[in-house]
């Protein structure tokens, strides 16, 4: 327990001492995960709405793939993103391996199936005739999609939370495509792994606590918005 309390003391001094390195790592974690979540929303919500509302051969197979993707192991994502971004890989010309951009890409790959899968479920959970009712009110196709997304906004907030939660806490993909380079691609999770490996448990605990507080704060904010909207 001493180690734990020492960790908390260390976290306190790192946070409130405004340690520049910790601050940079924290801000980069936020930047990478928020950007990845944003990209996953931009791709996942339209894809989920399309899958929920359309009817084409193989649709169930695609939804099964998306649902499988919701549990995609980050190290597998990390491996394939690395292969794609490798100098000789199909996306090697981008020259972004071991940069925050590569980390954003990898995390977006992890979060997109989560957002898509929850979006499909959210839209399909709306009353069966709501789409027809919206069309009967004179909506264009785009207006119909927008109204349905608006009606599913509460479960879609859960998609945001699940997507963000999935990427802020992952370490495998970030360490593989980012390389944990000090001052460039080091984020809270990769730094925690490194400090634990070095036996610096107090720093590792401090970084973990910061990560927990960060994840909690973002989710708390989203939960407050969700619960304020919830019908009573």
């Amino acid at each position, binding site marked *: 327990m001493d180690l734990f309390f020492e960790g908390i003391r260390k976290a306190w001094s790192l946070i409130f001492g405004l340690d520049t390195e910790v601050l940079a790592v924290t801000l980069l974690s936020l930047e990478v995960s928020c950007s990845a979540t944003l990209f996953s929303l931009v791709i996942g919500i339209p894809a989920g709405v399309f899958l929920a509302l359309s009817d084409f051969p193989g649709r169930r197979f695609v939804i099964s793939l998306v649902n499988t993707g919701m549990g995609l192991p980050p190290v597998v994502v990390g491996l394939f993103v690395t292969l794609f971004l490798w100098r000789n890989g199909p996306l090697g010309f981008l020259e972004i391996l071991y940069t925050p951009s590569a980390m954003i890409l990898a995390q977006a790959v992890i979060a997109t199936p989560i957002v898509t899968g929850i979006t499909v479920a959210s839209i399909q959970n709306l*009353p069966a*005739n*709501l789409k*027809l*009712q919206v*069309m*009967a*009110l*004179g*909506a*264009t196709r785009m*207006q119909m999609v927008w*109204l349905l997304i*608006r*009606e599913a906004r509460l479960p879609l907030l859960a998609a945001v939370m699940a997507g963000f939660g999935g990427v802020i806490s992952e370490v495998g993909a970030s360490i593989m495509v980012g390389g944990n380079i000090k001052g460039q691609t080091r984020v809270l999770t990769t730094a925690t792994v490194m400090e634990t490996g070095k036996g610096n448990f107090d720093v590792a605990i401090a970084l973990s606590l910061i990560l927990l507080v960060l994840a909690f704060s973002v989710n708390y904010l989203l939960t407050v918005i969700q619960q304020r909207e919830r*019908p*009573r």
Partner: protein
Amino acid sequence: MSDSESLLEIRNLTVVRGGSRVLEIPSFSLHRGETVALIGPNGTGKSSFLLALAGLLPLESGDIIFSQQPIVPGFASTEYRRKLAMVFQEPLLFDTTVFENVAAGLKLRRLSTREINERVTSCLKRFRIAHLADRSARKLSGGEAQRTSLARAFATNPEIILLDEPFVALDPPARQALGDDLELVLRETGATAILTTHDQMDSLRLADRMVVMERGKIVQSGTPSSVHNSPANEFVATFVGMENIFTGTIKESDNGLFSVSVADRTIEIMGEGAPMESVVICIRPEHIVVSVTNPETTASTRNIFPSTVTKIVQLGLYAKVYLDCGFSLVAAITNQSLESLALQTGSQVFASFKATAVHVFRKSH
């Protein structure tokens, strides 16, 4: 009906859903200002018909002609859909206030805020929900929610309003109150409407014309009283509550009157018929008079049968009296008559009905 202009015409419409043909309508027309009640049992294609008319179901074949203009087959254009409005069985309200719900169709049309406010306020008043304007749609009772749904549909001033069993989920008092208000709104606005319903009372109260559907086809169309009193076949007769349906053979026909033999009894009927022809005859329960003394045979009351009461079923304002007069008859009488006649099971009575009260059609094979 304000005039007889045909607003909507259907020609050779067929619709396939889930691999089977659910609609086959050779022709149907709707006149401006008319209210049509579409009746039929569950799964007979009433809702599919409304969805097809609303442009929300792809057609397998056929034409929809609106105001003399053909509508493109398949999913109809936004322009066409904006001329119609549809109310479903469930209110299907958005998760916002009552006001915003009623304004939804108007906002989709991008009307000015002033016009939206005016129209919404008027519709809220019309459906007696002005006091609920700021309430969340999630906090409404079933009746209030369906009123909001109706107000939302009427707010867009549709040329045709399609009502898919709008009262089905409501309790009897809410159903009665909303039915009264809808009747008033339809009359005041002169709206053209198609209403699907199971309830005979709704169709009698609201409709100018009644259309009966069976297995995706229209089997009869006419005024509510003509459908009720002169059903086209056994299916319609059963559906409109003709409980006395018998098969018989015409014995003789003379001077605008013919007689039909049913279970060794003879029933006299106004009309013409060919002797030896098999026919189906039906009599509405409310057209049968029950008396304890033999009524005089008048010019029109030609059918009088001594009977035994076999069962009495109380149904609120009236009672059904089951009679055995050689064949089974059901009579509907008021509770007051039931009391004054002191009827009970086993009572000996006379059942009588007029020759004009009997409806006849050829037996379908």
